């Protein structure tokens, strides 16, 4: 499979601040690649360079073989850039917005109306074509922004924090839309500060910190390499001795410990929490749960810790420093 996006020792400075420091990066055609890092890690800078909106300070960046420095117009014609903030004109409806940008991309006038209708349908805004932009919700704006980026049918989509600032419903809608775009064969680059957001969306992840790549690879492989065990959280009723005994006897369990949470203490039945690292697959996890139940532990919940991906990133970042 060929690389849709490729950078070689890409650097960029803003004054004395190093935004990108020799980035070697590539994303395969028709893949979804996540760029994860905290604020100031260089995600947006990398995306804007790939959109030919920002000049590289050094090194090289290519999109489908086209140099962003030498041929910015050609690069722009095959990329669709969605910035983190929604840029809008006043006195414009959602439909007019798409028709305007389709015209700016050179779409023939006879095709603009049907194209706008199709794109609005795609992003589930078919009923909002005549709605003024100012009255759209943040989630709707984000979806309209994605539709705008598709007006010229680009090969590569560059999405800057598409899920940021959205309510849960908006996130679900945008995630669904991104999955649809993946099915359409687009190469998608997504930035996020929250690695967990990209789970299930991206097959590749690159972790950035202070303009450098600290880890990159397939999502599952990267997760497995960086954290071979699963951080689990088990909540149960009653005393903790039996639970600790079961956990201690399981070869795949490390670092099992009870967590003192004052909000869980109180009148009987006593609620306890146990945190542990588990080195095993889902079948073995299921067996552990069965062992707990057989030992009489009244399990309330048995989950992989939600913050595990963020914790993983923190560990990687700390290791890179």
């Amino acid at each position, binding site marked *: 499979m060929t690389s849709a996006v490729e950078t070689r020792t890409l650097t960029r400075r803003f004054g004395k601040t190093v935004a990108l420091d020799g980035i070697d990066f590539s994303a395969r055609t028709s893949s979804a690649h996540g760029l994860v890092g905290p604020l100031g890690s260089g995600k947006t800078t990398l995306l*804007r360079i790939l*959109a*030919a*909106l*920002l*000049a590289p300070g050094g090194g090289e960046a290519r999109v489908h073989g086209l140099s*962003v*420095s030498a041929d*910015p*117009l050609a690069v*722009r*014609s095959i*990329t*669709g*850039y969605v*910035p983190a*903030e*929604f*840029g*809008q*004109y006043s*006195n414009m*409806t*959602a*439909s*007019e917005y798409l*028709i*305007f*940008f389709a*015209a*700016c*991309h*050179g779409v*023939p*006038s*006879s095709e*603009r*109306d049907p194209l*706008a*209708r199709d794109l*609005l349908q795609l992003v589930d805004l*078919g*009923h*909002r*074509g*005549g*709605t003024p932009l100012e*009255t759209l919700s943040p989630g709707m704006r984000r979806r309209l922004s994605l539709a*705008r980026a598709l007006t*010229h049918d680009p090969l590569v989509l560059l999405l800057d924090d598409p899920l940021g600032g959205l309510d849960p419903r908006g996130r679900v809608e945008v995630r669904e839309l991104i999955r649809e775009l993946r099915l359409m064969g687009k190469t998608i680059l997504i930035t996020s500060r929250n690695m967990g957001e990209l789970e299930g969306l991206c097959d590749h992840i690159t972790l950035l910190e202070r303009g450098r790549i600290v880890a990159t690879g397939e999502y599952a492989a990267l997760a497995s390499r960086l954290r071979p065990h699963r951080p689990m959280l088990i909540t149960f009723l009653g005393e903790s001795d039996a639970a600790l005994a079961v956990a201690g006897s399981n070869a795949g369990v490390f670092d099992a410990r009870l967590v003192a949470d004052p909000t869980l203490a109180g009148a009987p039945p006593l609620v306890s929490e146990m945190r542990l690292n588990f080195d095993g697959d889902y079948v073995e996890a299921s067996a552990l749960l069965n062992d707990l139940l057989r030992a009489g532990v009244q399990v309330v919940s048995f989950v992989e810790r939600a913050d595990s991906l963020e914790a993983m990133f923190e560990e990687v970042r700390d290791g890179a420093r």
Partner: protein
Amino acid sequence: MEPDSAPALPATSRRDRINPLALRELDARMRGGHAAGLLGVLIFVTSGVSLLVYAIAALVSANQGAGASRTVGTGVFYALVGMQLIVAAFAAPALTCGAISGERERRTFDLLRSTALTPWQILLSKLTASLGFSLLILLATLPLFSLAFLLGGIELSQMGMAVCLSVATAILFSVMGLCASCYAGSTVSAVVVTYGAILLILIGSGILLLALTGFLLPLTAGTAAGGRAAAAGESALAQVATLGLMSLSPISAFVASMLNFDNRNDMLRFSFNPGGPVSEPLWPAPFVILTVLYLFAAIVLLFLAARRLSRIDP
């Protein structure tokens, strides 16, 4: 909110050839009551000023007999041209100062740049819409000049000169605003830079002109001092400097061209000593120099603005 359907816009092949940004800008600039209201207010104010000048000139020249009408006509003409120059110098750049910086502030600049539009197309779209509206204002006040013609004292060539000055001024100052908008970080900065430069041109050149003519070359045609300066052969450089300064500001260019026409009845050629010998050197009239100078400066500034937008990291 009630769900509504996408409005169907008429699609014609002619639209393919029109720059969509220019179309949108013109639409935004001209559509609605705002543009019509602004146009109406400006025409109303210009008419009011003309009538005021008419009344004052009529009172002052009441005892001039047959020449009174010409004096009043000239006065009204000066007032109308003054109003046009004010519009060209101050209203026209106001429409372009936020052209590019406003796009940045709305977060739409990157979206525009990521389309197939070239920097020149973006610039010319903005300029066309803004300048189009400024020229519309100038055009709308032209019928008021019929009052001056009716009263007499004004010739068509003088009218042509006034139109040249107004249009050249509107073009240059609009482009100045556009260029500042490309380079400035915000619309406020662009406004400050543009109007600072305009005031420098209008007031600075006037002060320099007064200083120069007061000390080096008495401007009054046919005066003993002017004659002496010419005779001594020391005035050529001073004349060039004076003419250059007169041609920097549309106000001084207009007044000098009017006075020259009154003395020589020649609109295109200018003399510092109209009563002198035939061999007296003739220069292009200040308004001609200004028009050429302003259009040249506008082209240079447009190139600078395009250069700025062409960089992929503005």
